């Protein structure tokens, strides 16, 4: 039953993301989610292998420490503190988040749990995924979108961690590759956006349209 505490933390952190405007809060929450993720494999049944230990260490160090640090560096360089004028207000965001939670549970409950760990794995993964996507589509700043992407990654990782025992290494490699790509390539591009437009709003990035 201890795993349910983990889930509640995930849900709360997700709603925190939806309701907050400070970029530093985002980063702290994402860091928290990274640590939560690293704990997740310990709850699965079966023996604790060296493989699991290694994975949880890698996860904790990258998602809990490395990425947040890189992002806070980027924020400092770009001199932005908070997300202003999101497309969807914070109150509405929370409400939509609630709807997303319900939908996730609706879909997740239809899927037979892949492992005996918890019945909520799929639902939680979907919900976190949804929150990440929602951040991308409702916020204005390029950096918030990158943050949203990381949240999404976390959601995916929930599923991945639950399946770690069945999973070949390649899938785990996938998560890391994905995250690296996101941080590095997006970081480069954000740097260019910053240089080109002197700020990181994506408002100017709508020239290409029909």
């Amino acid at each position, binding site marked *: 039953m201890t795993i349910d505490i983990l889930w509640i933390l995930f849900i709360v952190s997700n709603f925190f993301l939806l309701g907050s405007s400070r970029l530093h809060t985002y980063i702290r929450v994402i860091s928290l989610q990274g640590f939560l993720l690293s704990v997740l494999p310990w709850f699965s049944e079966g023996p604790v292998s060296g493989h699991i230990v290694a994975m949880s260490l890698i996860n904790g160090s990258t998602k809990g420490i490395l990425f947040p640090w890189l992002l806070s560096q980027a924020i400092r360089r770009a001199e932005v503190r908070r997300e202003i004028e999101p*497309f969807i207000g914070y109150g509405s965001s929370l409400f939509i988040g609630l709807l997303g939670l319900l*939908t996730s549970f609706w*879909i997740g409950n*239809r899927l037979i749990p892949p492992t005996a760990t918890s019945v909520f794995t799929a639902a939680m993964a979907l919900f976190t995924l*949804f929150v990440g*996507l*929602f951040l*991308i*589509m*409702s*916020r*204005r700043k390029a950096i918030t*979108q990158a943050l949203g992407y990381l949240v999404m990654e976390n959601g995916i990782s929930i599923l991945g961690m639950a399946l770690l025992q069945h999973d070949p290494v390649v899938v785990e490699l996938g998560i890391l590759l994905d995250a690296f790509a996101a941080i590095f390539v997006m970081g480069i591009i954000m740097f260019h956006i910053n240089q080109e437009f002197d700020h990181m709003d*994506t408002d100017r*990035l*709508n*020239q*290409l*349209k*029909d």
Partner: protein
Amino acid sequence: MILLWTSLVLMIFSGGLSLFRRHPSSPRWSVAGLVTACLIGIVPAVHSLWTGASSETRLPWNIPGGACHLGIDPLTAFFLIPIFLLSSLAAVYGLEYLQGKQPVSWFFYGLLVAAMVVTVSARNGILFLMGWEIMTLSSFFLVTAEHEKREARQAGWTYLVAAHIGTAFLLVLFLLLSRSSGSMDFDSFKGLSPSETAPAWLLFVCAVIGFGTKAGFMPLHIWLPEAHPAAPSHVSAVMSGVMIKTGIYGLLRFLFYLGAPSPWWGWTFIGIGLTSGVIGVLFALAQHDLKRLLAYHSVENIGIIALGMGVGFLGLSGGSTPLAVLGFGGAVLHVLNHALFKGLLFLGAGAVLHSTHTKDIDHLGGLLKKMPWTGISFLVGAVAISGLPPFNGFISEFMIYLGCFKGLSPVHPSTGPLIAAMTGLALIGGLAAACFSKAFGIVFLGEPRSAHAAGAHEVGMPMKFPMMFLAGGCLLIGIFPTLALRAIKHPLAQLIPNLAVTLNDDLSMAERALSMISWSAGALIGLILLFALGYRLFWRGRRGGSAPTWDCGYAFPSARMQYTASSFAQPLTDLFSPLLRSEQIGSPGKDLFPKDSHLVTETPDVFWKEFYRPVLHRIQNLLARGRILQHGRLQLYVFYIVITLIAVFLLEMRNP
């Protein structure tokens, strides 16, 4: 068959010759090759038509469902002969007409002729469609040969789009036909019972729309009055004379795969025929561009062919063999006749254009004196297309009329459509005569209305000869219609196989009538010659001198005071103005002492103006609203992804 293949290869080769040799004499070689190819190709066609024999060859072709399967049977041969004949004549004509300009157009010309040949002799669906589309493309390039002109581009576009949409229906038709057997070979379509593939009405509709677009059935004709005037005249002649007939060919060949015809097929065709015929000729009347006028007459003549087919289908569905024989006979014969006189008329119009550099009828006049040979050829064409004896147009219309009369019987359901067909044909005939008395009268008679016309000169032999040849053909069929009857006998027997027993009886009835017409035509010509001789002997010497035309006492008559084409047609166009919707720019002089005034009337196609253009605009505006989708914001795009994801999940995970 080997001759046909040789002809095809030679045709494409000699057309391609013009691509590589940029020498002034290279068109000459191309044309020589083309004419030789046509002459070679015509041999097996004539043989098949005369003996009723058919042959085919099949070569492997590595396209799924496709096979290089060509064949000649009487029906094919009947369409091949005008193709070869008119194409070779028009090629000779084009040699002088183009004067070495646009050498590349010879490549497309060769391709066009070859594609037409492939289309009518293909025995495999894929090959047919390939020929069909190459035919469209090559003629598209010919239409836009002078693409620096706006009209040519517009015409080309309209043509291309219309042809493309028509082809889409053909694709459906072929695929539905091949559904039961899975093979695209025509042989496998035979003996198909429609219920096992698709409802017959669907196939029928697809065929009529698909082939009708090419043929120029009335609401689908819009490309035709644009494309024909834009093309070089020898190409117009080929397009109008034989290319649009491939649509008729398609109908004749494929409708018979659909099982027993229903009466409503006949009614549909008669309806199409009346619409195309009457409205076509009315629009022709309202035009003052000579080639556009001729193009509308193609619509009209296609209408006449459709009337004949309608009569034929009524006969088939009602079990009345004479009706079927006369109807289809008339229709098939009109295909040949139209090729002759419309080819002739387009060549004539081309000669006028070549010599005067204008095709506006209102700027011409008095050309008969300057261009006697062109003039008399054009006159022959004009009389023939009006369906007047003793020329060929009369023969085919006569057969359709006779079919209508023959089919009349009280309380029979097909009497109504037959009467409609007959009356419509009469109206078409009257209006066509009106239109061509205008076309010939204003262009060739009277005084020149402009400097263009005054400076006209007769064209050279390469242009004169094809026209005279075709005029001779018109007269030949007009005087010896029984010859033509012999030519359509085998195609008819092939079309209506279950009637083969009674075919001879029915044909001999027509033959009796036609031989009497033959005598009458001979007598008529004799009588006219007699009168002419009398005039020559007795009165010609008694000229009391010559004078100006009676001018009602007006002091300074000028050539510009002559009746123009527009004023000539005005009573009729006024009468039908609700249909024609002519547009007027400027106004005629008013008051007792009118000042300078200027009046232009235009009669654009009413279907294009009132239907296609608004509909296209409507669609475009509607779709333009959807373009907000691509709004430029990344957030929105991600939103699409989320919505799609949720939608597919809700859609597919409903019932676990």
